[in-house]
């Protein structure tokens, strides 16, 4: 089962990149945390989401102000 920002999700994706595509995430400025690990976009395509286990995903907007 996938949990996205603490909500159960019915989406099915083989990798984080596939999931990002299904969610239509913006191409830039987004952070994605998989099971407490913050993963750069460059590794999303190689990061599998095997359905043998639950995955907890947090998605948030990066900010740059100060």
């Amino acid at each position, binding site marked *: 089962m996938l949990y996205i920002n603490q909500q159960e999700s019915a989406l099915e994706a083989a990798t984080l990149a596939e999931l990002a595509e299904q969610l239509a995430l913006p191409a830039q400025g987004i952070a994605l945390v998989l099971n407490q690990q913050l993963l750069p976009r460059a590794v999303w395509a190689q990061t599998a989401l095997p359905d043998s286990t639950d995955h907890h995903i947090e998605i948030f907007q*990066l900010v*740059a*102000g100060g």
Partner: protein
Amino acid sequence: MRAKSVPPEATQPETTLSDTEFIRYSRSLMLADDGDSRQLRLKHARVLILGVGGLGCPVATTLVGAGVGQLTLIDSDKVELSNLPRQSLYQTGDIGKAKAEVAAARLRLQNPHPRLTVLQCRPDDQQLRQAIADCDVLVDCSDNLPTRLQLNRLAREAGKPLFAGAVSGTSAQLYLLNSQTACYQCLVDPNWQALQNCRTLGVDPALAAVTAQQLAWLLLQYLQATPAQQASAVPVGHANSVPFGHYGRFAASHSQIGFHWYPLHANPSCACCGAGADAAQKGAL
């Protein structure tokens, strides 16, 4: 560019605190058995803060109040009316004045001991490299992505630790990086046209202060630690811990209010710290 520096009181590295320093810092000295040594390490610490706005003002105030040895303040902006709700070093009469200059003047009134240096400019690489060379720790409190990427790159180049905060709207984030960890550019695409700043999204003044003081607390932990403590990897949450390589995100839900820290993974092909950087270097040779 103008650079001003107040000469240190003594040219020899000091090994004791003066009587007035002892009284001034007495409430900090009580906090640990080795309070004197911790205070002296802070007195010898040299910190650079890039950006003296909603984050930079409280961070500078806490470090100077606590007795940091040397602080370099860099900002090219002038004080604006809309800064005043959260940028506590500025007053209504300061509107139009150079931020870094006004900030340094206020901080000198707060505590005459720290050496304060001001760069009232948007530094190019050479200017920033020069400022970095004179500091031990770099603090990013800037308000734009190009500056964040610049300081990230030059921190990595100099091998110096980077403590950074970012706030916009109702979001607040922190990242703590050094030469052993992933870098900011692993996470952020340099081509991102970041519009997530205080001008476009506004900013919660209390959240800016919370973020700045979380950063200041981490800085004081680090600056007062022994070199051995600084180098040791300690678990997040330990009193002496600085979670280098982590990205913190403020969240408030039920009883969990505060920063949640996530290990930031490196991008192996990062153009700043990874294979992309090696390739760029080889290409340049």
